């Protein structure tokens, strides 16, 4: 690996902060990997980030050629899980007298609610499914609530705002007039239909503004220390990027970016747009599906730190199989102690790494596998194959025509042949696929609204067109090149029992970053 002399053109760095390791890569303009590094993730996240960044920059002859840094990070997830550095949020719902049976944050764990909530109110406002107002916006009540609820940020959620957003925007104006710089999260910019889940995501987003500032400041400090003047981008949960200014407004969207990055990275490194991706780590293997270059998304509700949201996250199946998994004791793993405890490192604990080495799947470690373990390790290899075959079958949904791309530090555990896949692909640089995924990602924007069902005439066509334009505008705001933004997804879900037939319209636009 060398970023040797003669490299010209702009470079970019992809970084993925995972639970165990922080990976970094340097890519050139042709997306070739010039340098890569893996460092332990530090408790404060930032030190590990600095170490990984220093390591790759040390390999590049001309660090000043780096113009962009793409970061996928668990800062936001960790902040929520650890209830750390979260802002206090004034939670405002527009919908009274509707929705009063379930007040905001009802389903939150007590400690998280206490940490985050500065107070909550349901005021007159919101819309019916057909766009009629439930009540006019009670602007006086909004002002009274804001005046009596000092907070770091405000979260605003209106009933049916994904279809009719004007009241939420009106509240944003009131907040600006009353409180000036206090940031506001508007639910229609963050989630889709389903009030409780969207409100939860909006409040989490508002609580994360401080964390977002912390990360961007830390990253900037690391870059400044190296004298780098670069644009920075953050990876989000669908495998696309957002510009740092956009990420500062929607920090909650960074949650779940890790699996998305590794799936996208696997796609790029293997050159396959449709595949099953298995990312084998130290304690688990994550399987996802790559559909036309993007991760397949989960239909189920996503829980973050005990809070239910309706984010569209990559559909990931995690199994307790990693390089450090102790033979016969799944899901126990020796984790980072593998370099001391595994048999092939002279330790006394049989791990899946030992099994794979004994089975001739890789050359790892400093010691040969002791003979007395041969039989049990052979059983463990069969167990690996059984676990992986079962998991592949679960995520394949009946299709057997897509290859499996094996990535991550433990990819050598996987067999070369598996039922249900024609081929197992092991691309170069597979161990840092996630950081590569961050570096090569597109920028995107998405939108969900309600439109009349087919046969709705001109009004329907106009609304769909408006939705496409808005999704494209959001992609550009996230950093995409306006000239090459495309609508990559447009789906309609019929709604039942409504006065007029209607559908839920989901639009996603994406494009490469502006040059």
């Amino acid at each position, binding site marked *: 690996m060398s970023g040797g002399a003669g490299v010209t053109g702009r470079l970019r760095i992809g970084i993925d902060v995972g639970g165990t390791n922080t990976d970094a890569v340097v890519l050139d303009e042709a997306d070739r990997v010039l340098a890569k590094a893996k460092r332990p993730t530090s408790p404060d996240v930032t030190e590990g980030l600095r170490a990984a960044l220093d390591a790759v920059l040390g390999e590049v002859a001309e660090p000043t050629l780096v113009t962009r840094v793409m970061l996928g990070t668990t800062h936001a997830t960790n902040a929520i899980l650890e209830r750390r550095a979260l802002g206090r949020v004034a939670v405002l719902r527009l919908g009274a*007298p*509707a929705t009063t049976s379930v007040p905001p944050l009802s389903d939150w764990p007590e400690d998280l609610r206490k940490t985050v909530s500065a107070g909550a109110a349901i005021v007159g406002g919101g819309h019916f*499914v057909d766009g009629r107002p439930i009540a006019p916006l009670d602007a006086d009540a909004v002002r009274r609530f804001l005046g009596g609820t000092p907070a770091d940020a405000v979260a605003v959620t209106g009933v049916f705002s994904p279809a009719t957003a004007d009241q939420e925007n009106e509240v944003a104006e009131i907040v600006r007039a009353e409180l000036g710089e206090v940031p506001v999260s508007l639910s229609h910019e963050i989630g889709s239909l389903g009030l*409780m889940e969207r409100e939860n995501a909006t409040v989490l987003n508002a609580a994360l503004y401080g964390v977002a500032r912390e990360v961007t400041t830390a990253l900037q400090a690391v870059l400044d220390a190296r004298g780098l003047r670069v644009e920075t981008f953050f990876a989000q949960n669908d495998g696309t990027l957002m510009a740092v200014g956009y990420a500062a407004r929607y920090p909650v969207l960074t949650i779940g970016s890790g699996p998305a990055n590794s799936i996208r990275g696997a796609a790029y490194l293997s050159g396959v747009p449709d595949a099953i991706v298995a990312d084998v780590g130290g304690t688990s293997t994550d399987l996802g599906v790559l559909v036309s270059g993007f991760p397949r998304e989960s239909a189920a509700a996503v829980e973050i730190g005990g809070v239910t949201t309706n984010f569209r996250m990559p559909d990931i199946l995690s199994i307790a199989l990693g390089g450090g998994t102790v033979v016969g004791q799944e899901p126990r793993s020796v984790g980072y102690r593998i370099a001391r405890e595994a048999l092939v490192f002279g330790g006394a604990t049989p791990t899946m790494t030992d099994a794979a080495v004994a089975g001739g799947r890789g050359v790892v470690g400093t010691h040969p596998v002791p003979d007395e373990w041969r039989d049990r390790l052979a059983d463990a290899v069969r167990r690996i194959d059984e676990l992986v075959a079962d998991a592949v079958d679960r995520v394949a949904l009946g299709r057997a025509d897509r290859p499996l791309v094996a990535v991550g530090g433990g990819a050598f555990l996987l067999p070369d042949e598996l039922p249900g896949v024609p081929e197992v692909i092991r691309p170069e640089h597979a161990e840092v696929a996630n950081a590569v995924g961050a570096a090569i990602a597109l920028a995107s924007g998405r939108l969900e609204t309600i439109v009349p069902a087919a046969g709705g005439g001109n009004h329907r066509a106009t609304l769909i067109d408006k939705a496409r334009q808005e999704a494209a505008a959001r992609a550009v705001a996230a950093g995409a090149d306006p000239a090459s933004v495309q609508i990559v997804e447009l789906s309609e879900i019929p709604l039942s029992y409504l006065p007029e037939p209607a559908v839920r319209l989901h639009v996603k636009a994406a494009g490469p970053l502006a040059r």
Partner: protein
Amino acid sequence: MSQHHRVVKAPRMQARVSLEDVSALARGCAVLGTGGGGDVRPAAVAARGAIREYGEVPLVRLDELPGDALVLPLSGIGAPTVSNEMIQSADEPLHIRDEIERIFGRPPAAVMSSEIGGGNGVSPVAWAARLGLPLLDADAMGRAFPEVQMVSMYVAGIPANLVVMADVLGNVVTIRPVDGLWSERIARAVCVASGSSALMADYVLTAAECAGAVIEGTVGRAIAIGRATEGAQDPLAALEAELGAVRLVTGKLTDLERRTTGGFARGTVTIEGTGGDRGRKLTLEIQNENLVAIEDGVVRAMVPDLITVVDSQTATAVQTESLRYGQRVTVLAWPCDPLWRTPKGLETAGPRAFGYDLDYVPVEAIETAGSAA
């Protein structure tokens, strides 16, 4: 109909619904939902919130109520997409209570669930807490059904001559329909005018009238079902034992065909056996709920008996809309309440009521015949 297959077991000591009972109730209601009945999760959130604010809900048996006590069966009506976005007003049950008091000259004495299966089995806890009323340990189905006339009161011959509805704004509508069909038709129209979501009371009746016209013990039973699997070593075996169910197959979902016709989500699901069931293949016919289970061209269980698909590991019920290819599931079937096995019960909710040209045979009779063959 032999009595030893009665769904209702010996009376339970469940005297109230506490905060801790809600998750067990929700799990149990999902099992009794036979794939339908709506999502229990949002209903559980509302129930927990209401108990926190207004206190635990006493659970009363029918024989604990005076004969002239009014029982208020409540259910949500409308589109799930709407009710998950435009959540109910806290005041809807109060509006209905006040209207009932105006009509009958006395307030209701207890709330009852119209449908124990799914979310409608959990929500009445929130409504009862809000009203400060006990919850009757009973419901009108013992499971979930898709149509309003598929209730025990209809089977028992009680006329559907009063419906009271309240919406999020506090509009209250009282309908005095000539029969069940008009009750459904007008209630739907009112619901649409109210933004496609409303709270509804129909078949308001006295405790004396309830005898033989409601299915007793179902709230306590749902809680017991939910409890049976919590922390169990083998949740599936625990659930099977608690239900007295027949395990139709344990396997993998290998085919799923969905169609939407006549407002119902219809479909056919194929489950291929794994492990000890390898080589077997069960198909399930679905219309919102799981209705008929067929193996090798032979019906193994059919509506109104209960058929539920559960996750083989956790024994958590899987709703029909959440069924997906590759899921590892077990299909359980067990007897319905004897009320549904009467001629009027079968006419209302037997296989022919759903368009299947089948003569009803109880699940336990099929099982006995199968093992004798």
